[in-house]
């Protein structure tokens, strides 16, 4: 702003004033400080100094520049640049003279000015209004005669518009600065004066402005006239819109049950006429019934299940996935033995494994026989001769010899009973 330039010497002087040290020390410090800064920047580091700012090295690749006068291109080679971004404190302090100013939206205030200030003096300026109409008619005539001249006039008009804008902006500035004028120092007053001078220089002859303004006013009033008739029908329309808003909701409510009904009908028809869906639903229902049987303490389920399995032998392969789950359930539930195939007396040399092999096909399933006769046998390895042993009727799924899971389960039980002793 001002042309005062501080050398490093004057800075050193100031430093010596602030901190009572030798001048030599202060100089040394300054040299070391900037040397350290420089070396750090040369290494590509960013240096931050508290409350002051950050220094940063930015690389820029090679880029072209076009000289518009010569129409020649220059290629500026890649280079490094030190960039300084001031800290917030420094930024605010430097910008203190203009800190009270804030960005202003112009259009809102413009309308107010037009309505308040420029409408009253309309009546004495009726002469200018007449002049404006005359000029307009003249312009139209010229337009009819020679289009190029009109275009030039238009250009002039276009050029005048920004001038007006400038004026407005400067006026506003004036207003902005009039408010805090009392508070701010003398500097700002100087700036103000300069602004005023500029205004005086810029201001074009009043007649043109007035005519222009009148034209603008005329246009605005015309627009307003146009808007008002448009605005009146818009109110009932709004009311209609408001009343219309709930109607689609009603329609939706009307449609909802219909859609639900269609979905249900479709589902039912699928169930009856499309075989895969039918089967799937049946399997689902079966699983449910199985669960119900197991959860209730039904002693007959062991007897009933084999029959079901026999009936649905054809479907066993299809239900393999479901069977796995039901098997797990079978394993987990405690077994009740109510029906028996036969009762045999133990002879010397006969074992439970032999019995199981005879009746179930595999010796591993002796555990179930042992379970059924727990009250008579103390230990499976030590059975007194002559004890009658009941061979229970088992679920066919439980003693499926082709299923490895059944065998595993039986082995687990075996370990449990033999380990117990």
């Amino acid at each position, binding site marked *: 702003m001002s042309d005062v330039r501080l050398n490093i010497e004057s800075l050193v002087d100031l430093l010596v004033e602030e901190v009572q040290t030798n001048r030599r020390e202060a100089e040394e410090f300054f040299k070391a400080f900037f040397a*350290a800064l420089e070396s750090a920047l040369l290494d590509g580091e960013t240096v931050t100094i508290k409350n002051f700012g950050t220094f940063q090295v930015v690389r820029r690749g090679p880029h072209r520049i076009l000289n518009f006068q010569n129409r020649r291109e220059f290629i500026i080679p890649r280079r490094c640049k030190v960039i300084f971004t001031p800290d917030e404190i420094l930024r605010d302090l430097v910008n203190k003279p203009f800190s009270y100013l804030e960005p202003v939206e112009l259009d809102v205030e413009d309308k107010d000015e037009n309505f308040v200030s420029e409408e009253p003096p309309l009546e004495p300026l009726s002469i200018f209004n007449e002049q404006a109409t005359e000029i307009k008619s003249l312009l139209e005539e010229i337009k009819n005669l020679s289009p190029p001249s009109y275009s030039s006039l238009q250009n002039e008009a276009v050029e005048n518009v920004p001038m007006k804008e400038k004026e407005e902006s400067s006026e506003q500035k004036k207003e902005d600065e009039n408010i805090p004028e009392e508070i701010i120092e003398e500097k700002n007053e100087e700036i103000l004066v300069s602004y005023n001078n500029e205004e005086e220089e810029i201001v074009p002859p009043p007649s043109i402005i007035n005519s222009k303004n009148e034209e603008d006013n005329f246009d605005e009033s015309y627009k307003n006239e146009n808007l008002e008739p448009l605005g009146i029908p818009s109110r009932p329309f709004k009311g209609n819109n408001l009343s219309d808003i709930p109607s689609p909701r009603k329609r939706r409510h009307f449609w909802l049950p219909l859609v639900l009904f269609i979905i249900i009908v479709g589902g039912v028809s699928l169930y009856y006429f499309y075989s895969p869906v039918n089967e799937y639903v049946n399997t689902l229902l079966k699983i449910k019934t199985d669960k119900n049987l197991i959860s209730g303490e039904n002693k007959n389920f062991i007897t009933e299940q084999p029959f079901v399995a026999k009936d649905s032998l054809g479907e066993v392969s299809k239900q393999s996935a479901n069977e796995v789950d039901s098997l797990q359930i079978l394993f987990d539930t405690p077994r009740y033995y109510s029906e028996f195939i036969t009762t045999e007396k133990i002879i010397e040399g006969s074992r439970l494994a032999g019995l199981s092999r005879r009746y179930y096909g595999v010796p591993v399933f002796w555990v179930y026989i042992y379970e059924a006769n727990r009250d008579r046998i103390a230990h499976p390895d030590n059975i007194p001769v002559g004890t009658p042993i009941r061979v229970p009727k088992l679920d066919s799924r439980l003693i499926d010899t082709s299923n490895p899971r059944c065998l595993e389960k039986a082995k687990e039980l075996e370990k449990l009973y033999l380990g117990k002793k």
Partner: protein
Amino acid sequence: MTQKELIDIIAKNIQFPREEVEKLLWTTSFILIRELSEGKNIEIPDFGNFEIKKREEKLLVHPVTKKRVLFPPKLEVQFKQSYALAKKLNKFF
């Protein structure tokens, strides 16, 4: 590089006690800020210049809403690197 590292390096180079260097650095930054906020330019040979520049007010139009906004003038700190520093920086390229 943080301020602490900078202080360490300076203290090592000129063999001052650390606290004194810290104090000196603080006062220099204080002086620089004060002088700059008074509108003075600072020249540091072989490093660069700190200049205060005024940005003129500008009238911008929002492209969508067509609202005209007047931005006030502004004072800014600008740093211009010296020729010597630029030469050193670009020496490796």
